[in-house]
């Protein structure tokens, strides 16, 4: 039991980026745009954060972490504009443009590493994010704050109601005077910013540099958390905690007496298997936003 308690900071370290990215994915899907580019956007964010921290940590000790996170957020939002433009303005297939970003992520980030650092990864930074009281990283508090903010915005503000309407029935939303395309643009930009921030949180707490394939499925786990969490903040938070814990267990299982019999791969598979099974079990029930994945044409019915 005590070893499980000792694991808590590590679990929260894994949960935070997954939860932040999943919140972004949830906002986007609730507005009607599926964003499978979370994985790639996290890569862009992680690169931006690592590069900024390496280059700034000596001149601005302490502040460089926060500048790095801000840049990660900005780059994520910027790149997600591609997805927004293709899938909203041009009504293109949302999965194709998302896949394009995922393919671009490794190429662009490592290309920039080669140009800036003359190697296939960023230089390692000396000091990542410092853990706060109880060994808990500030990323956990960021994730918690964002969770509350997203819940408040989506369910307690008119803007949130409008955003959800765009994802359920865009034609009805448009007839009530909502600019569906503008709403969806904001949602995709938010998901890009969240995913970028999540990538930054991941690289600054879990490693000391950015390198190829570093995100290694965290973005896809976030995507799974959105579906398993039934597209509502409470559910997505719970799913992210469960999946983050599974990721942590896969790494630390060798240290836990009671669980040592299980192979680490068991915990790695858990998030994906659970999501697949729940998708089948929930099939036929209307949890997913009804218009998610469909483009909205003005005037079409």
């Amino acid at each position, binding site marked *: 039991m005590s070893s499980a308690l000792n694991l808590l900071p590590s679990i929260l370290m894994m949960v935070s980026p997954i939860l932040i990215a999943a919140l972004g994915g949830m906002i986007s899907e609730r507005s009607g745009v599926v964003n499978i580019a979370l994985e790639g956007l996290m890569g862009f964010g992680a690169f931006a954060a690592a590069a900024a921290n390496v280059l700034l940590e000596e001149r601005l000790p302490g502040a460089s972490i926060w500048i790095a996170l801000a840049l990660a957020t900005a780059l994520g939002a910027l790149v997600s504009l591609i997805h927004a433009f293709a*899938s909203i303005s041009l009504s293109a297939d949302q*999965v194709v443009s998302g896949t394009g970003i995922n393919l671009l992520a490794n190429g662009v980030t490592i290309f920039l590493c080669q140009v800036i650092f003359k190697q296939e990864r960023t230089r390692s930074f000396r000091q990542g994010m410092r853990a706060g009281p109880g060994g808990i990283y500030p990323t956990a508090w960021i994730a918690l704050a964002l969770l509350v903010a997203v819940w408040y915005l989506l369910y307690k503000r008119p803007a949130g109601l409008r955003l959800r309407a765009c994802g359920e029935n865009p034609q009805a939303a448009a007839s009530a005077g909502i600019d569906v395309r503008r709403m969806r643009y904001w949602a995709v930009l938010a998901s890009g910013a969240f995913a970028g921030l999540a990538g930054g949180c991941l690289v600054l707490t879990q490693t000391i540099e950015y390198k190829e394939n570093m995100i290694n499925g965290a973005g896809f786990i976030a995507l799974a958390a959105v579906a398993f969490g039934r597209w509502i903040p409470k559910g997505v938070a719970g799913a992210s905690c469960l999946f983050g814990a599974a990721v942590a267990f896969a790494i630390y299982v060798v240290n836990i007496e009671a669980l040592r019999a299980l192979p680490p791969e068991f915990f790695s598979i858990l998030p994906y298997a659970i999501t697949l099974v729940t998708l089948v079990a929930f*099939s036929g029930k209307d949890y997913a936003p009804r218009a998610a994945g469909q483009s909205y044409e003005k005037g079409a019915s």
Partner: protein
Amino acid sequence: MARRAAGLGRGPIVRLAGSDAAMSVLVVILGFLVGTALVAAVGRDPANMYRAIIQVVSGFDLTRGTWNARYIGEWLVASTPLVLCGLSMAFAARAGLFNIGAEGQYIVGLTVAQFVAFYGPPVPILHWVLAVLLGMLAAAAWGGLVGFLKARYAVSEVVATIMMNYIALYLSRYLTMLIPGTNTYKTPSFPATVRLGNAWLEGLTNRSRLNTGFYLMLASVLFFWFLMEKTRTGFALRATGFNKDAARCSGIDVTRSTVLSMAISGAFAGLAGCAVCLGSFGYGRVLAGLDNYGFNGIAVALVGNSSAPGTFLAGLLFGMLQSAQPLMQSRQIPKEVTYIISGLVVVFISLRSGFGLILEARAKQLARKGKPRDE
């Protein structure tokens, strides 16, 4: 009447956007232009990039004036899994499905082939034939399961295949490490009877790794074309892709079509896994991450417009980029420019379909305005 009007109103740009092959070429050229500009922007000589590419496809080293056929062989080796994963994506796409799961199906094929390599009968020819067949069969089941979930429970095949990819990856790691003598990254060497090595092809290309997998890939391209364009089954699949409800009403079993298309799609990706594992490597691998052939297959199929000949050519194109990487790197060109080019091509294609729709709608509008007598 509306159709005639739209036809009359089409300008040259719209007609070009309508021709898929022309647009694919345009999109690829655009990708290369951006890549070239990028290389120039960071102060490297783009000519070196093209020298590397020419050396890969022709074997000629323009800077030294030497010729070595091995480069051509390695180019075809690199293209083989890309064409196969492209066929996988394309086959599902023709039936209206988006198979992001080629990656996982590739891993399943590779893992089963590794097991047959160690536990199958070490008889020449029979051994590798068995490994390839079982690998394809397992991958077909892996893909077909997603088709079944889609047809029976309406589970999105996009989400389901992403989940199945990672399940396959970690399952493969776990199972492969059970093989005796395996460390954390590789198994012992395969017996010679299971290798896809082909002395004639190797001799032809100056001891490259070109192997029987290349023949299997060519056969797959022909199989794809024949099944899709010339048989009743292919027609049913395409009809399902065009309009599921219309297909159902005309007596096509949509559930069967969906499961079958995902299963065959999986078999192609599984063959890619067998070709890589038994052709290019002499040992089994404990995968540390995804090989990304499946995801690049999406780009291949998109550029090839999901047709058999188009996918074949696109696979050769992406194989060329991939096998040019080490040559580029040795000439101070960051090799990631090839990933950027493939990523850009996919992004441009997603934009293309949108532009096409908008141009068509505008042409229709113009045609309607210009032809008031029709009303």
